[in-house]
């Protein structure tokens, strides 16, 4: 064969290439290229028509420049012209340029199609091949439309040359992928499958690729290919290599074809036909046997080719997952490779074994290699191999070996490459949770993780440990003790502070009995970390502090001092400042009961998929998880993409809400209202606010108003002539309320008697959220009219208007007065003037129940005086109405008549208006 001379036939090109190679710098190279581009441009634009040779030369130069990494934006037309040349070399350069540089949307496609059409009809196999390659490479829709009908015909025609058949098969594959609607396979199916029987192995190779792709799309249509591929495979595997001389590669018979056939079989389940199945099993056994035979050549190419087939066979065995003997043999074979001196083999063996681990038949067999894999983790010099070892340990882990594997992974983590640390952390966290029998072990493991690789512990991991501790009360005490101890370390990772803060805030009481971890010690320990932490962690710690106030009243003062300090109350960070202010307020004004309710221990989290698992899945499919490895066999590669698009954000958001928001601020906190207002009588809803109004005569808390959109709850407290009302606006919808305002209507009749001050609220109420408004009031003198609250907001574009009568009544300013029977009757007589007494006789609207009546009278605000009235059936009470100007003493007597179902109510006060108002209010209650 003649040696090919450099730049054969194209001297100009050779010179140019030499010039480029001689360029000393990148700048020089670019300069030379720009000069050449200008030259070519002028030649193409010039008046003189270029001959084929020159065109070829310039197009070839452009191609070279493109391959060097520069963009080319002209010359396409000249390349298309070359297609019509009769000289092979010119035609070939034209096609090459088009294949590489023309994208499928180009305007030139029609011209190119013309050239292709001529060549396809030329009956010159070399030209036909060029044309088919071009279609396969460009694969545009217009090309598909033009040639979709020709190509299958060429492929199956009896007189087509073998090499053309090969090109046609691949060309069809491409068109089928880009425009499947244009290439209906129906009529060709049987004949295409039959190509597997072709005498020529090159044709079979090309056809196998085509059939594999088609079978993935419509497996049923290509079922018959299973039998043919098994037959073909069997002939290749069992034949002496001499038969296939042309396709033998280093003594291995047709390795690439074998791999393809094995892959085609992975589109299908194991064959049902018994003889076919046994023939396939025989093939697979033969392949496994050959691995044990002494090599026919010492060349690495020989063993590589042999092993390529072997690995593909093992893939098929795993895919079928039905022959225990084969699975175990495969596992043993891979086990040998684990110690092979070729890094490539160790890598692939670890990867394949990952999949074997998820089969029930071979899981145990895989486990026997645990020591080797652990050793690989320690000694392997290539990080990608170590990563596979981690994957495999993860896949082979079960209850029996979890402790050892987790321990080994933790040890490895101390020196692991930074690039894979996060993944290892996730894996350890998942295994520890999944196989924990003893949750103290789980807690220890996670804390170790944080200690060893705190920076790589993602939010999900520490969220999860908290979820688990909260949901399992058997581990809470241990967790509190362990984090307490861990926090003693002089330098501990911020993630540990987070976990510590959260857990001590919830369960610090469980270890507070020990004087070494008394409440104050716990608090001081946490607070010593405070200043080193980031804002989110500080916010979490503040929440822990307010929880401490509830858990340990004895440290309340200390914590209040901390909250009160300027660095908290005036913190530049809004979130921190708000928390400090709110928590401080909460701790000052709320009663112990309310505090206990608001700061109750977190309720168990709903069980759901571990957020860590979701994160690991997100991280990258390849070889990480047995679950994903299974889907890998679906070949299309779509699986991974789906994972990627769906995963982001979803994972972290819910856990964040769970862990941080619920305990963040007592004001807007979700369902607190329901807990605080355990008075169920108030919960029945109605739109008539007058009715609800009267319900509040004898009580202070409840729901005053409710419709489909909004719930207004009240909570009020009074002392002497002062009162404060908390109004809670709950958005029952999932959409925002906008322009939300609420104010008191200016009904001037009461304003001189009652001073009220309303704080403004945020104009936006998020869906499902609740905001609180505070009303302060002062009773100046006695009054009759109640204030009306006006609420206005936009919901979905509609303006909503409400007016609710607020239950602020005179009796709210009662202070009960205890007195003896003698005193009572003495006063009673003193208030004997006719204008001082108001009496009402009325029918009972509710069943007459002594206990209910007593409760109502107490709720009304007076002291219920026992054994004062000579008639034990009667109720008497006494109290003082406090207003700013005067105090009004008040006595009342209620005489029920059970027979007649009637009451007589008598009120005596020093002021007639007071007596009348009180009588009106109370008489409505029975």
């Amino acid at each position, binding site marked *: 064969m003649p040696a090919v001379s450099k*730049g054969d036939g194209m001297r100009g090109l050779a010179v140019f290439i030499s010039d480029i190679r001689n360029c000393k710098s990148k700048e020089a190279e670019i300069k030379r290229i720009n000069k050449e581009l200008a030259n070519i441009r002028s030649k193409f634009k010039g008046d003189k028509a270029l001959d084929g040779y020159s065109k070829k030369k310039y197009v070839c130069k452009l191609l070279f420049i493109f391959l060097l990494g520069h963009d080319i934006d002209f010359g396409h037309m000249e390349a298309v012209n070359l297609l019509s040349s009769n000289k092979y070399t010119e035609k070939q350069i034209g096609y090459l340029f088009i*294949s590489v540089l023309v994208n499928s949307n180009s305007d030139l496609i029609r011209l190119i199609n013309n050239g292709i059409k001529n060549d396809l009809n030329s009956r010159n196999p070399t030209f036909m091949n060029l044309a088919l390659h071009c279609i396969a*490479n460009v694969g545009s829709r217009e090309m598909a439309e033009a040639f979709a009908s020709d190509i299958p015909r060429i492929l199956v025609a009896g007189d087509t040359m073998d090499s053309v058949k090969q090109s046609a098969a691949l060309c069809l594959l491409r068109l089928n992928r880009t425009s499947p609607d244009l290439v209906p396979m129906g009529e060709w199916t049987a004949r295409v499958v039959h190509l597997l029987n072709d005498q020529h192995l090159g044709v079979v190779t090309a056809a196998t690729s085509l059939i594999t792709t088609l079978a993935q799309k419509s497996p049923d249509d290509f079922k018959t290919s299973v039998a043919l591929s098994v037959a073909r495979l069997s002939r290749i595997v069992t034949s002496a290599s001499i038969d296939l001389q042309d396709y033998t590669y280093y003594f291995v018979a047709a390795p690439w074809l074998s791999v393809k056939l094995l892959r085609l079989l992975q589109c299908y389940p194991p064959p049902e036909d018994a003889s076919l199945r046994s023939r396939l099993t025989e093939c697979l056994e033969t392949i496994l046997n050959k691995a044990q035979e002494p090599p026919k050549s010492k060349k690495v190419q020989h063993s590589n080719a042999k092993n390529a087939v072997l690995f593909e066979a093992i893939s098929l065995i795993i895919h079928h997952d039905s022959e225990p003997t084969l699975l175990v043999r495969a596992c043993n074979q891979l086990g040998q490779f684990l110690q092979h001196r070729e890094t490539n083999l160790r890598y692939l063996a670890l990867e394949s074994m990952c999949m074997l681990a998820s089969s029930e038949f071979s899981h145990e067999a895989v486990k026997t290699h645990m020591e080797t894999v652990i050793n690989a983790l320690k000694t392997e010099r290539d990080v990608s191999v170590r990563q596979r070892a981690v994957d495999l340990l993860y896949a082979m882990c079960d209850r029996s070996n979890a402790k050892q594997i987790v321990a080994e992974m933790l040890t490895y983590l101390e020196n692991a490459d930074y690039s894979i640390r996060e993944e290892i952390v996730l894996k350890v966290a998942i295994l520890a949770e999944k196989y924990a029998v003893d949750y103290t072990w789980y807690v220890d493991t996670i804390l170790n993780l944080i200690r060893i690789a705190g920076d790589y512990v993602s939010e999900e991991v520490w969220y999860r440990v908290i979820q688990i501790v909260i949901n399992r009360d058997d581990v809470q005490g241990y967790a509190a003790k362990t984090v307490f101890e861990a926090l003693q370390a002089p330098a501990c990772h911020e993630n540990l502070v987070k976990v510590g803060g959260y857990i001590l805030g919830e369960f610090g009481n469980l270890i507070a009995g020990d004087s070494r971890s008394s409440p104050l010690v716990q608090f001081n320990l946490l607070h010593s970390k405070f200043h080193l932490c980031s804002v989110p962690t500080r916010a979490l710690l503040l929440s822990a502090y307010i929880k401490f106030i509830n858990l340990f009243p004895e440290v309340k003062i200390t914590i209040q001092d901390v909250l009160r300090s300027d660095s908290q109350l005036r913190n530049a960070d809004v979130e921190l400042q708000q928390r400090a202010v709110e928590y401080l307020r909460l701790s000052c004004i709320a009663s112990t009961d309310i505090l206990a309710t608001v700061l109750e221990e977190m309720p168990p989290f709903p069980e759901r998929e571990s957020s860590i698992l979701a994160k690991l899945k997100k991280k990258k499919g390849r070889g990480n998880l047995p679950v994903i490895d299974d889907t890998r066999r679906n070949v299309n590669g779509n699986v991974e993409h789906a994972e990627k698009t769906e995963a982001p954000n979803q994972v972290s958001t819910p856990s964040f809400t769970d862990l941080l928001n619920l305990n963040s601020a007592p004001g807007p906190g979700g369902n607190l209202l329901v807990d605080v207002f355990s008075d169920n009588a108030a919960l029945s809803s109605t739109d008539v606010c007058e009715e609800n109004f009267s319900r509040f005569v004898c009580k202070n808390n409840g729901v005053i108003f409710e419709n489909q959109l909004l719930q207004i709850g009240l909570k009020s407290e009074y002392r002497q002539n002062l009162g404060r009302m908390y109004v809670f606006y709950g958005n029952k919808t999932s959409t925002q309320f906008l322009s939300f305002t609420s104010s008191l209507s200016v009904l001037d009749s009461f304003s001189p008697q009652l001073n009220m001050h309303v704080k403004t609220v945020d104009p936006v109420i998020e869906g499902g959220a609740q905001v609180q408004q505070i009303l302060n009031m002062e009773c100046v003198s006695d009054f009759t009219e109640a204030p009306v609250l006006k609420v206005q907001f936009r919901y979905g574009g509609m303006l909503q208007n409400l007016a609710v009568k607020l239950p602020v009544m005179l009796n709210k300013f009662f202070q009960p007065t205890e007195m003896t029977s003698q005193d009572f009757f003495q006063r009673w007589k003193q208030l004997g003037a006719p204008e001082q007494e108001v009496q009402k006789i009325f029918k009972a609207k509710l069943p007459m129940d002594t206990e209910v009546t007593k409760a109502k009278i107490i709720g009304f605000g007076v002291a219920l005086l026992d054994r004062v009235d000579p008639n034990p059936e009667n109720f008497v009470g006494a109290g003082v109405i406090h207003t700013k100007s005067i105090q009004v003493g008040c006595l009342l007597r209620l005489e029920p008549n059970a027979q007649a179902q009637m009451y007589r109510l008598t009120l005596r006060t020093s002021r007639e208006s007071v007596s009348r108002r009180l009588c009106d209010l109370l008489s409505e209650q029975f």
Partner: protein
Amino acid sequence: MISSHDSLRLFLAAADNDDKVRVDGEPRAALEADVVRCCLSRKKEQCSFVDHRDVRLVYRQYAALYIVVGVTDTENELSIYELIHNFVEVLDKYFSRVSELDIMFNLERVHVILDEMIQNGHVVETNKSRVLAPLHALTKMADAS
């Protein structure tokens, strides 16, 4: 194909498509540089397969010349690894003791060879003499004329 001297940086786009080296929308040069860095930074004892973004790179080194193939994870790595060698052997046969310079100065022929062996990212022909048939035919035609 990459040379460690960086004087030869050729991306043969024919191995495209299924085993897509080119990531859509990404500047070609950036991807090339990335892949080059990725492969050149690896040591001899490291394995010849490396995950790079969403492709797996299979590479083989011949003196200063690296041949890199990007494959999806459904591909059999060893078979690709040997395919690279087969390709080099074909080049070696055609150019009789191939060198970087042969490849450099005969790009279009190298492309023909690659086109004969791989189309659409699928192996079509592995038999050396059949791969070279069109080129030999070409030489004959040239001789005849």
